């Protein structure tokens, strides 16, 4: 099994993330999952949008693509359909995936196209200094919610599942080994896989909301995560404020590019002639 250092473009490290940011922990967890799969590096393509999480691909020695805000899944869909044998991974953030990118998340999941998406959720727009995202909790403070945030947040995993994703899971930076396991399962699912990875932004979110330093924010993750099996035994009141982790949905079904290949094969066997 390769060491994860094999997957890094060492010449461009150290990365730009703040001291204590959870994104590096999550990226390392992802690389350990990839190491377990051990694909040829040329077969792997990592696509991202815009934001702190979306800077991840630049540090990776794969085919990497850093696109426009919210659109990673649409670019990735083109790559996967053009070259179905490639392993397509999308790295996105909570703002990139749920706000501007929400529609593309819905449709990529609906198609069940073979893309593994990992959403680094730190509940904030970190790169631009701390504006609220669709995953910022109600009542939190952000630079664009100076009096406290009015909006309720998404359950992103529920959104992915309802849209048709065949594999959905949630992990945290703190529970890094479990996260590696979830990403590994996500990679092995042929269809659309969505993994939400709870991350911490100590500088733009934690400090403003008095959540302590990075270690304190990781401890919060440890104390608030509840595995899905344990969560099933808790009442709604007991689940308030908790983060449900683990495999939330696993229902394999035909992957989009396989369906397309079947169509093409059927057409090449038929007598030809234009469709009506």
């Amino acid at each position, binding site marked *: 099994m390769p060491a994860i250092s094999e997957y890094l*473009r060492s010449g*461009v490290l150290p990365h730009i993330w703040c001291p204590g940011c959870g994104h590096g922990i999550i990226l390392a967890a992802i690389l350990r999952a990839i190491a377990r799969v051990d694909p040829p*590096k*040329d*077969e792997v*393509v990592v*696509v991202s949008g815009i934001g702190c999480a979306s800077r991840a*691909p*630049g540090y990776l*020695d*794969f*085919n*990497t*693509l*850093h*696109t*426009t805000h919210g*659109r990673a899944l*649409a*670019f*990735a*869909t*083109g*790559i*996967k*359909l*053009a*070259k179905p*044998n*490639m392993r397509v991974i999308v790295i996105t953030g909570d703002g990139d995936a749920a706000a501007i990118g929400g*529609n*593309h998340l*819905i*449709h990529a999941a609906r198609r069940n196209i073979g893309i593994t998406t990992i959403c680094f959720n730190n509940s904030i727009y970190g790169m631009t200094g701390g504006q609220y995202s669709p995953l910022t909790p109600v009542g939190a403070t952000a630079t664009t919610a100076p009096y406290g945030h009015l909006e309720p947040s998404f359950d992103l995993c529920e959104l992915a599942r309802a849209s048709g994703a065949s594999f959905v899971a949630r992990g945290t930076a703190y529970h890094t080994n479990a996260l590696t396991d979830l990403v590994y399962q996500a990679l092995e699912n042929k269809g659309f896989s969505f993994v939400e990875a709870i991350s911490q932004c100590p500088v733009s979110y934690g400090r403003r909301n008095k959540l302590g330093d990075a270690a304190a924010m990781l401890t919060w993750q440890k104390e608030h995560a509840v595995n899905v099996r344990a969560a099933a035994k808790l009442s709604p009141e007991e689940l308030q404020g908790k983060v449900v982790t683990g495999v939330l949905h696993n229902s394999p079904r035909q992957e989009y590019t396989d369906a*397309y290949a079947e*169509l*093409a094969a059927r*057409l*090449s066997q038929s007598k*030809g002639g*234009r*469709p009506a």
Partner: protein
Amino acid sequence: MSAARLIQGNEACAEGALAAGCRFFGGYPITPSTEIAEMMAARLPRVGGKFIQMEDEIASMAAIIGASLAGLKVMTATSGPGFSLKLENVGFAAMCEVPCVIANVQRAGPSTGGPTAVGQGDIMQARWGTHGDHPTVAFMPYSVRDSFDLTVTGFNCAEELRVPVVILLDEVIGHMRERVELPDPAMLSIIDRRRPDPSVTAPSDYLPYDHSAEPVPAMADFGSGYRYHVTGLHHNERGMPTGKAPEIDRLVRRLAAKMELAREKYLLYEEHETEDAEILVIAGGSPVRPAKRAVRMAREAGIRAGLFVPRTIWPFPGDRVRELARTARRIIVPELNLGQMVLEVERYAYSSGAPVKIESLGRVDGELFTPGQIYTAIQEALL
């Protein structure tokens, strides 16, 4: 030559794409371009190509860029409102030097405007719609056959120069049917993007954005053994983000200079009776048909009228216009907008120093010029 067929401009555009080797289409329906998507949906799966209707025009532009990076020749088709949506990603394609072709079958605008009405209000937008200094080449076909030819040319240009190319049809050209004999694709001159040669360039030495490559850097397919980074951020020759002023300057200038490369290699126009023209009509797209008839009517009446037809609209064939402005007394520019191409005509014609008068003839009511309208303008130009 294939047998003669009665086909639409939109169909001819799709045929041109297939003949040029397009094997990926990402689309979204919008009148009056939808026939292009429908034809590609039917034809591509039968030739080993891929078609997908994405959830919106932004996604379809993104999908074709992804497919192009994977090594395919790609296209999308749309009209004004969809083109407006695509622009951010068109800029991404320009910045990252990803070959792609965007057919914009222009309709009357602005906004929702007239979906089934003709217009040419996107001419400036095709060049300048996306932000920042960027190259975008655009061709404007004037007939069904020209839609085929310029789409093939558009693909060659996109591949050779690694730029986004816009094919500016309009609702009349797109929907009208003409009898055409399309050339056999095997007889066409087709250009493929230059890829790095593994026997010459090792993966660790590959520079995807090599500033000294000519005419443009070689482009490796994702998955072909060359792993590199593609980003819309300012980047160095390796594709990694940079904040260094000299690197940024070099990149932005090299990209913008592709317009000069296009000027050298892809500047296409036609001229009719311009050698001694006193009254010069300059028209592109669907106004060419009535303009041709008007010029003929004028000649029959003894007026020395001529017609200049830009087929490449961006870069604009201004040097030729400047030359013609030296001998013409009047230039009339009929456009289905309130004066866009005419701004380029003025810029070049006035720089000739010649005392030429330029008239912008605009129509924005959703209908095409009649020959009579243009002929009247020619006659009035003599007064």
